[in-house]
């Protein structure tokens, strides 16, 4: 059934910029939704076709399309990206993925190289958990704690909220009761997405990225520390590595100008 649902509705796709511009597909990471890109996108809207979307389970995606089996691995999210890019008829797209979506982008460009010309990975990590001489920054116990944190913070979620969050067009936008809605999702979905995000190991997939790639590394990023960004840089042949002054894990929000400038320079360098 999934294949028959329009990806535009399923993934709450929003398009802007000239239709004949080079497509930039922006993907949000674990936690929030496409709003994460709202301060970065304006820098590209004049010359590029902008594609924003919500992963299924996040933001205003179609929650009824959430299938625990399909989204039990990053593969399901990757399939969505490929389907969406195909359905929109995009070619030569540059995928810009934040956090876990940086890895989803790496998987997507390897799976459908004909659709993508470039990849921008913002705060990527192919493996969050330490082990076998690899430093990811976290232990299994840390991730278990995160799941507890998520549980504790979804008490405010109630079934009555779901229709509003799913973006029923008949309902007024974001009222007071929807505070925190950018980063709120069904608890069961959030918990599974957290597991998929933080327990995946995609180190072996990095070498399969065959397109020009930019890695944006933040300073003092607790989620994707320097050593991890450098690991990604070395594992993707020919990738470019830019360290941002921005601190934390969300430069798209905290330093949109610096983030946009780094992406812009990468695009210009390839004539995109």
């Amino acid at each position, binding site marked *: 059934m999934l294949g028959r649902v329009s990806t535009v509705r399923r993934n709450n796709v929003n398009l802007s910029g000239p239709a004949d511009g080079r497509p930039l597909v922006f993907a949000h990471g674990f936690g929030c939704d496409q709003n994460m890109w709202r301060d970065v996108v304006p820098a590209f809207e004049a010359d590029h076709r902008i594609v924003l979307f919500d992963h299924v389970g996040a933001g205003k995606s179609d929650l009824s399309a959430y299938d625990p089996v399909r989204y039990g691995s990053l593969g399901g999210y990757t399939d969505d990206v490929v389907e969406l890019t195909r359905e929109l008829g995009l070619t030569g797209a540059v995928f810009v993925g934040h956090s876990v979506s940086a890895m989803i982008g790496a998987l997507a460009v390897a799976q459908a190289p004909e659709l993508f010309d470039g990849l921008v990975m913002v705060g990527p990590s192919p493996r969050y958990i330490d082990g076998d001489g690899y430093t990811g920054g976290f232990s299994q116990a840390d991730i278990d704690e995160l799941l507890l944190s998520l549980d504790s913070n979804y*008490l405010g979620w109630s079934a009555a909220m779901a229709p509003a969050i799913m973006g029923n067009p008949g309902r007024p936008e974001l009222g007071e009761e929807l505070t925190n809605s*950018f980063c709120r999702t069904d608890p069961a979905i959030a918990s599974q997405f957290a597991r998929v995000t933080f327990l995946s190991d995609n180190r072996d997939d990095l070498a399969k990225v065959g397109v020009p790639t930019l890695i944006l590394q933040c300073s003092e990023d607790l989620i994707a520390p320097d050593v991890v960004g450098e690991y990604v840089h070395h594992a993707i042949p020919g990738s470019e590595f830019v360290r941002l002054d*921005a601190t934390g894990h*969300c430069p798209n929000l905290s330093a949109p100008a610096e983030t946009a400038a780094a992406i812009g320079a990468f695009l210009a360098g390839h004539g995109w």
Partner: protein
Amino acid sequence: MTAAGADWADLYQHAPCGLISTGPGGRIATVNDTFLDWTGHRREDLAGARFTTVVTTGDRIYFQTHVVPLLRMQGSVREIAITLVCPDGRRLSALLNASMAEGAPDGVARIAVFPAGDRRAYERELLAARRRAEDSDARASQLARTLQASLLPPALPEIAGLELAAVYRPAGRGDEVGGDFYDAFESAPGDWTVILGDVCGKGAAAAAITSLVRHTTRAIAARARDPRTILTALNRVVLGEQSRTQALCFSTLACVRIVTAPPSRPGAAPRISVGLAGHPFPYLVRDGSAPAPVGRRGTLLGVAAAPWLRAVPVALDPGDALVLYTDGVTEARNGHDFWGEKRLEDLLTTLRGQDAATIAQGITDAVLGFQHGNASDDIAIVVLRRP
């Protein structure tokens, strides 16, 4: 310090909540006495440390992925559950509110934390209770599906010279055992019994009666195959079960006997008789004429010691189909509107000439479509057709 200033300072330091200001990078700039007293942290140790160092690692990830983006996007967050880690290893459950001024550099925020140990403990209990309830629901639903599957034949037999198709569709999400059932079996060479029924009620009690009716039919048919005899014997068994359990239970049943043509005369007409116990009339669907109800109305099983039950012969010519169904078909509801016999007859008219499986599926699709895919009652359909 002025009196007002002293009041302000007292309110800040001894506010009934922990107050923390963070500077760029989320590093702690000032912290009030309440927070220090409460956690046991020393002011000099916290100065310049990231705020997230006073919470668990899990919370730290949650901050980066949820709280920081929210603060940036909406300027404030409320009621975030956190766990503070104290220098002596104690963990304190708390709720956090935070805000940042518009355009402030990343990490610059005002934070208030409230002790919430009792509330959080209670919430955890509620959450655990909900999990148990969800698990229990899932188990009940799994049990219902397994039980339901055991009440229907895993596959339909092949009857020489006839097509046989059946559909069963539980009501709603199928979380409960329904009362509809069917069965088809050969009780002697070339002598077949097909039943379709609807037991009153749902759940375990209905499942028990369904199982009883189904297995008793098989037992009776081993020695007597006439539908009237089978129905009469079943009525006695259902009545006996009622007096045993002191629970009211009854069942409708359509019972069809099919004696296929002998191997020496392949292609000859099968002999078919139909008996009904409180069951909707099956339809005979024949090319060139309107779908016609067949059979005689008989007494529901389990209501009378001397039921009125009859079996009538039905001639099935090549191309004819006999369609049996439960009331989940005709009583399918859309608002105040029932699907009804008229719609069924109209549909059967359009399905004339189709094979048995297509007819059964066509009825199912129409009934589900009428109810927008959410069946209010179980639907069971058996179609017998002579190709």
